[in-house]
């Protein structure tokens, strides 16, 4: 299937409130997003940030209070049937029928999407092979391991070759090996032209897997862009260069670099030049150049990449690891 020209997701002014124990909590407060077709997009944020609520609105499970959402070109509120035909969904709960076999689950899902019995059978065999579930196909899902079940659930989500696949916290509870395996499957899917929209509260998942990330907090997008550009924009790479230069030479080098456009900040400590770079490659070249032109040999150099947590910290004043109000957040996302 060729990638459709319409964006995978186009969201504007999205709002949703819940009443929990008498108080109104705005889980989503004006989210704006456009995800082009073919992208692997991540919604990163702490528990209760509104990620799951947003995903539920986009997958037609929950009506928004205000705003508009187009998914694969169809309006979530006005044409939910069209949206459902075009998307796949892998929820947090999974949703495989545990008493049924893997094959039964896949066949039923395929048929529900309108595949003929023969087509469903073919697609089922194909996915069982791709997700390495062949030998488990006729066993009850309740006997599967966590990783096996997750693979089946992703297979269920793409049984009908959707244009956009939504995944809610897809790797939560998986061990590192199964996690890496799932990432690989998702990358292959994206290469095949499927747009992928996932939520995660794992920094490394957003960072390594996603083309672009929206960092959300309190129902708002606080930063949006590719992981690299976000980190660059909010806090550049940190370069540390240790050389044999004397303090006087180091001061001279520091002064000469002060106006370099690739450098945001520079400090000298214990014979080491520390640079916060706007552009790591250029900044590195500038530092090396300044040292080399004075005939100073370099002893050690390192580049520390900022993390998305630095971005979150910068925007909210909290670390993503500590943020979130799990009890309240989950209650708000569960209630309705």
């Amino acid at each position: 299937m060729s990638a459709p020209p319409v964006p995978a997701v186009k969201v504007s002014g999205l709002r949703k409130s819940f009443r929990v124990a008498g108080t109104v909590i705005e889980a989503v407060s004006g989210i704006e997003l456009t995800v082009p077709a073919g992208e692997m997009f991540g919604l990163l944020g702490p528990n209760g940030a509104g990620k799951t609520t947003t995903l539920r609105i986009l997958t037609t499970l929950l009506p928004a209070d205000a705003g508009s959402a187009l998914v694969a070109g169809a309006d979530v509120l006005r044409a939910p049937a069209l949206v459902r035909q075009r998307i796949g969904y892998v929820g947090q709960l999974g949703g495989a029928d545990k008493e049924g076999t893997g094959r039964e689950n896949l066949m039923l899902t395929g048929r529900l999407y309108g595949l003929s019995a023969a087509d469903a059978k073919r697609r089922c065999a194909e996915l069982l092979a791709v997700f390495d579930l062949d030998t488990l196909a006729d066993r009850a899902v309740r006997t599967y391991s966590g990783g096996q079940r997750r693979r089946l659930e992703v297979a269920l989500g793409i049984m009908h070759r959707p244009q956009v696949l939504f995944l809610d916290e897809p790797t939560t509870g998986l061990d590192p090996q199964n996690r890496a395996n799932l990432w690989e499957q998702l990358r292959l899917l994206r290469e095949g032209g499927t747009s992928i929209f996932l939520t995660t509260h794992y920094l490394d998942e957003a960072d390594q897997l996603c083309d672009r990330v929206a960092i959300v907090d309190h129902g708002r997008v606080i930063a949006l862009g590719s992981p690299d550009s976000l980190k660059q924009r909010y806090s550049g790479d940190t370069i540390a260069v240790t050389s044999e230069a004397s303090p006087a030479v180091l001061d001279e080098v520091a002064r000469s670099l002060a106006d370099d456009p690739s450098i945001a900040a520079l400090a000298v400590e214990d014979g080491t030049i520390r640079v916060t770079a706007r552009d790591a490659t250029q900044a590195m070249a500038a530092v090396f150049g300044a040292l080399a032109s004075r005939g100073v040999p370099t002893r050690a150099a390192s580049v520390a990449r900022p993390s998305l947590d630095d971005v979150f910290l910068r925007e909210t004043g909290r670390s993503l690891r500590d943020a979130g109000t799990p009890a309240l957040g989950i209650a708000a996302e569960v209630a309705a």
Partner: protein
Amino acid sequence: MTSGFGAFGVQTGLFFQRKLFETLRQPVWIITGLTTPVLYLALFAPLLRSLAGGPAFPPGQVLDVFVPGIMVLIAFGAGMGAGWPIIWELDSGVIERFRVTPASRLALLLGTVLRDIVMFVVPGVVVVAVGGAFGYHVHWGGLVLLFVLLALLTAACSATSSALGLKLKQIGSLAAVVTGAQLPLTLLAGILLPLSLGPTWLRVLGHINPMYYAVQAARALAAGTVASGTVGVGFLVTAAIAGLALWWGTRAYQRAMA
């Protein structure tokens, strides 16, 4: 792509098959589903024999009054159990996953309803066969209509239980509501003992209970009376309740949140 109605039929069939498998995987339910009604016949009917000839039981017709009562009880039980598995399905995300597919919500509900109708018809046939062997007078025309009427009642109960499961979301709450409603509903319908035995106030209360009309019609049909006002009212009331319950259940599926 299949046309709307064809797709709806296919989806209903798929959900029905799925629910039927769910039951077949639990042989315990099938066994108790079949033995309980037979036990009623074996253990309860003898108690009534001494009442034969009394005000509610014309001579020699104890089973004629009692068998349709048991049938209503089976229909009620077959339908009211629908909510429990639905709560498990909510908890495991199965329903959420179905709700993201284009499948019709009514088809989703009907899968359960049709399975429950089977769960009424099979033991119902057993009861008629066993009852017949012990002296229950089978009136064929009335019997067929009796099954149709009670299939409607099963549908009403099944859809109601499904909607309750989807709304309450918790086994404990569902159990409280269903068992709480069961006693007044069945007692005030005159299922086991005809309400005509009771005082006026009890009979007045019975008339508020929609199931009362189904029971009255069931007794008339079991006795072979087809063309009567009682039967007509029974069908009207039961069909209306079933329609309302199906509408409510479909709506509950549209809005279900887990």
